[in-house]
């Protein structure tokens, strides 16, 4: 009797509200601990947000590269951080926006999964998204706020676009369009590369459903696809106009900078662990299920195709696929985002697998799945501790205070051995640096012509890094470069030979300050890259406006939708006929 009651309860979908509570319980403590601040890029986003906080309509940021334009990076998440920071401060505002992105992912995973699988499996996919290793890796180790903000918006937009393609209703068209535009305003790489991996399977699904439906034909779906593509494309063109102007005027022609996500993960197993094992976690065990079920069920084949391409691209240099498909972009992009997208595309499969395992093995399956998902999430969260972004954790407050006093900020500075602490330092100080962490935004020839990343980590880029450093030290007078903060004694002989001398020290002499005589004051860099005032106005209004419009429209209830599900998959894969072909667990 108890068994029957158990099965009855067990067969219900997990309430979405409960999934959001789980997301809160898992991620809120970690975010309140400000764990992402230890990641690679969190401080980078906070630095961008600080510019919007103080100069909302002026994305020209003088603090890096002697001045650069932030229109080279879509601004939406950073602008939300800036807005929220006026209430809770920059650090907590970052955590808040990141938490919203996590919640949006759970909702998006549910809505996107409903296109492919039944209600119950979709809720399990949403729950899996909360514990997803790749999400935890990007949030707590990589600090990729924009990537983790944009992808959930696409996942939420696509079911609306599917509805428009299949049902020709205007409300889904408007909602899907506004959400897609907001997603584009959040991250450019997700727009240019990830959006297709998500959208093409949905388009193929709509065409498949059109063939099987008597209500609408394939021709109609293609026509509506063209319409929505043109509409979304045009709006993205307008909303991100300053970004496109920068990209067209100054395309990324720098010498490629090496990145370990492009390496062969078998020949470099340490990077294989970092970019493959940790992000995928226990999901790797589900790969045979994904391939076999995805191929045996016609409805899931478009999704399998999208997953497979993203999976191969995420393998970086382990296969020749990414190099061939992406061309030069392979040398510019980092590949971990493709693994992230692959795991998102795998979520409907995971929901389906979880549902079947639970139906078959009951509590043993529940326990096993929770342990597997929990371990995946825990390892990815802890990875930031085992493989920290910075080899050494230290405070930069004293360096910022030194720069801010006695007129030191009238000159520019450079750090050596600070790792990605330079973003934090840039937030705290008024002074301007010739270095920075946004490689695509820099224009100084000393930095772009050598194929190295940030000067503060010059030695890790071998000869290219040291050549770049020597060039900037040689031309320091041109940029008003008077101060060099050294955390790594490796660079001291180079500074001595270049005519610099030690003038002060901080933090028990672990940071030394070097200077040069007769350096002229730093003057504003009159760069041709500087945007026009109307571009700053657009940057300050349209991206945030697109997201505000999306929130407003979503808040308006649809009259005709009461009692309907979010999407209308014509046949979910929980239909008995579909399970016969590829039932993996039975």
């Amino acid at each position, binding site marked *: 009797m108890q068994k029957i009651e158990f099965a009855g309860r067990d067969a219900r979908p997990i309430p979405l509200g409960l999934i959001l509570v789980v997301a809160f319980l898992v991620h809120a403590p970690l975010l309140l601990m400000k764990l992402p601040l230890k990641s690679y890029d969190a401080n980078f986003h906070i630095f961008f947000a600080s510019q919007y906080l103080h100069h909302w309509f002026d994305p020209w940021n003088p603090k890096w590269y002697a001045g650069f334009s932030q229109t080279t990076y879509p601004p939406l998440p950073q602008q939300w951080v800036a807005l929220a920071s006026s209430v809770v401060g920059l650090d907590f505002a970052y955590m808040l926006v990141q938490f919203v992105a996590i919640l949006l992912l759970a909702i998006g995973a549910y809505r996107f999964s409903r296109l492919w699988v039944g209600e119950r499996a979709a809720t399990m996919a949403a729950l899996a998204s909360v514990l997803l290793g790749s999400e935890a890796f990007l949030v707590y180790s990589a600090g990729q706020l924009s990537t983790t903000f944009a992808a959930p918006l696409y996942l939420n937009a696509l079911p609306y676009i599917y509805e428009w393609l299949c049902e020709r209703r205007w409300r889904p068209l408007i909602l899907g369009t506004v959400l897609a535009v907001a997603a584009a305003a959040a991250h450019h790489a997700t727009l240019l590369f990830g959006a297709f991996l998500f959208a093409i399977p949905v388009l193929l699904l709509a065409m498949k459903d059109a063939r099987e439906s008597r209500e609408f034909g394939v021709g109609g779906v293609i026509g509506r696809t063209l319409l929505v593509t043109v509409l979304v494309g045009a709006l993205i063109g307008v909303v991100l106009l300053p970004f496109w102007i920068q990209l067209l005027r100054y395309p990324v022609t720098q010498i490629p*900078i*090496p*990145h*370990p996500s492009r*390496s*062969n993960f*078998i*020949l*470099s197993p*340490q*990077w294989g662990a970092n970019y493959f094992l940790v992000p995928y976690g226990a999901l790797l065990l589900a*790969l*045979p299920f994904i*391939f*076999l*079920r*995805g*191929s*045996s*069920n*016609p409805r899931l*084949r478009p999704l*399998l195709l999208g997953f*497979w391409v993203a*999976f*191969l691209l995420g*393998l970086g*240099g*382990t*296969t*020749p*696929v990414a*190099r061939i498909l992406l061309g030069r972009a392979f040398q510019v992009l980092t590949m971990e985002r493709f693994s992230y997208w692959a795991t998102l595309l795998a979520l409907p499969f995971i929901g389906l697998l979880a549902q079947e395992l639970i139906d078959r093995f009951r509590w043993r399956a529940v326990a096993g799945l929770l342990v597997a998902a929990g371990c995946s999430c825990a390892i990815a969260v802890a990875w930031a501790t085992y*493989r920290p972004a910075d*080899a050494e954790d230290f405070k930069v407050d004293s360096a910022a205070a030194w720069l801010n006093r006695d007129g030191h900020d009238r000159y520019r500075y450079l750090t050596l051995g600070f790792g990605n602490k330079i973003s934090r330092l840039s937030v705290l100080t008024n002074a301007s640096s010739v270095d920075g962490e946004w490689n695509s935004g820099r224009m100084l020839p000393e930095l772009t012509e050598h194929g*190295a990343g940030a000067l503060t980590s010059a*030695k*890790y*880029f*071998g*000869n*290219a*890094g*040291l*050549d770049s450093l*020597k060039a900037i030290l040689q031309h320091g007078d041109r940029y008003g470069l008077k101060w060099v903060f050294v955390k*790594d*004694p*490796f660079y001291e*002989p*180079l500074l001595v*030979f270049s005519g610099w001398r030690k003038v002060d020290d901080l933090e028990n002499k672990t940071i030394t300050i070097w200077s040069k005589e007769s350096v002229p004051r730093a003057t504003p860099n009159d760069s041709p890259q500087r945007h026009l005032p109307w571009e700053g106005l657009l940057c300050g209004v349209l991206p945030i406006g697109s997201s505000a419009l999306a929130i407003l429209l979503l808040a308006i209830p649809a009259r005709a939708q009461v009692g309907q599900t979010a999407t209308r998959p014509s046949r979910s894969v929980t239909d008995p006929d579909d399970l016969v*072909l*590829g039932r993996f667990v039975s």
Partner: protein
Amino acid sequence: MNGGRILGIVLMGATLALVAVGTVWPDQSVLFDVASSLISPATEPVFRLTTLASIVPPTLIAADAAEVELDDAFAVSVTLPALHAVAPAPVVLITLVRILPSTVMVGAVSDTLPELPVEWFVIESTPAA
């Protein structure tokens, strides 16, 4: 066997084949670019040929000079210097090429500063036991 399932098996097989191709013949363009700046013009053709013919693909390494013993180079973990998480000073750059049954090492050792003389060398050694 169901036709759809065959597709899945084919995709899995193709994935493994692509991984094998990428591992046996990895992209060497970055390696060649860096090596060209390190190796003398006379030894560069040798480097390229041996690289293409090698069983274990060569990689540039960065390691503590004090810890690197050239006779024991195989014990040194390999990675691109730019990618090495913590490369203590002074940095040694070595290109390592392994051809069975004999081993040829071609590369450069640089001391702390790039201004200092760079010692070029070509070493032949016996294969690792």
